């Protein structure tokens, strides 16, 4: 599975790690919905650290799309909400 960390690039992760990551992702989603800023930051950093640790960076010239896209470590709650909204922040 290929995962992108926004602003950092892509890594390849074994599918077996997905369950672990999903747990953190559920926490993250709950914290986002509750507007828990500090919790959100903590969980996001934990999630990204795990992805970086378990993942193998893709070469720069790879053109493979990611299956998952994770926000950058300094993304705010609002930015992530915007990303998930219909319009999104992504230009084009």
């Amino acid at each position, binding site marked *: 599975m290929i995962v*992108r960390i*926004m*602003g950092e*690039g892509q890594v390849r992760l074994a599918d077996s790690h997905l369950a672990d*990551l*999903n747990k953190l*992702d559920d926490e993250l989603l709950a914290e986002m919905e509750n507007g828990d800023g500090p919790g959100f930051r903590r969980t996001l950093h934990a999630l990204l650290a795990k992805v970086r640790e378990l993942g193998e960076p893709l*070469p*720069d*010239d*790879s*053109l*493979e*799309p*990611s*299956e*998952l*896209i*994770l*926000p*950058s470590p300094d993304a705010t709650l609002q930015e992530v909400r915007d*990303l*998930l909204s219909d319009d*999104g*922040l*992504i*230009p*084009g």
Partner: protein
Amino acid sequence: MKRMGMIFRAKANKALDRAEDPRETLDYSYQKQLELLQKVRRGVADVATSRKRLELQLNQLQSQSSKLEDQGRKALALGREDLAREALSRRSALQQQVTDLETQHSTLQGEEEKLTLAAQRLQAKVDAFRTKKETIKATYTAAQAQTRIGEAFSGISEEMGDVGLAIQRAEDKTAQLQARAGAIDELLASGALDDQSGMHKDDIQAELDRLSGGTDVELELQRMKAELAGGSSASQQAIEGGTGQSQSQQQPQDTPRFDKQ
């Protein structure tokens, strides 16, 4: 997590659906990629400019801070604790600004590094895309094209979306910093903070100058009094005769200090 992955892909497919001949889309996308690459490079340069401006201001603030410290010391030496306190409290306000600017400086540095890396990644991907694009066009069959173009597209459009956001963030941060940097420049220009040229004098410096100027006047008065007491005929002579010689003859006895000047 799944939801985030879908945002980018949905958009890439939309772009593809719009085009009648997918090959045109390839060229169009490649143009967009080159434009974005230019934009990232400009972004890196802009952030570097802001960083350098911040460094300049930090230097100015720091030299102002050490100047205030000197003033405080001098004021204390002249027995003006109130003035020394004023100088030191201004210095601590300044130090706060220095700390603030240092934080911003490291933010900008981080931003610069991130954008530089983003530019490298995008360059590699754009090159790979160009190769793939030419291959697809050379061996084009309508049945194949849709899938292969789709694959190349979603990879690069994801990168473009990411890089586009990174630039936007860097621009926002730079704009915020520039507004603040402008405010500090104004402060420096107004003389509220003394600039390094020494053209403007702040009020503490003026007071110190006045104080030490006063000391000089006192010394001068003492010297003159001593001179007069030394012999009225001699000074009378000096005034009437106006020769430098008679003056210098008199000085060693009365005012050794004058001699050094």
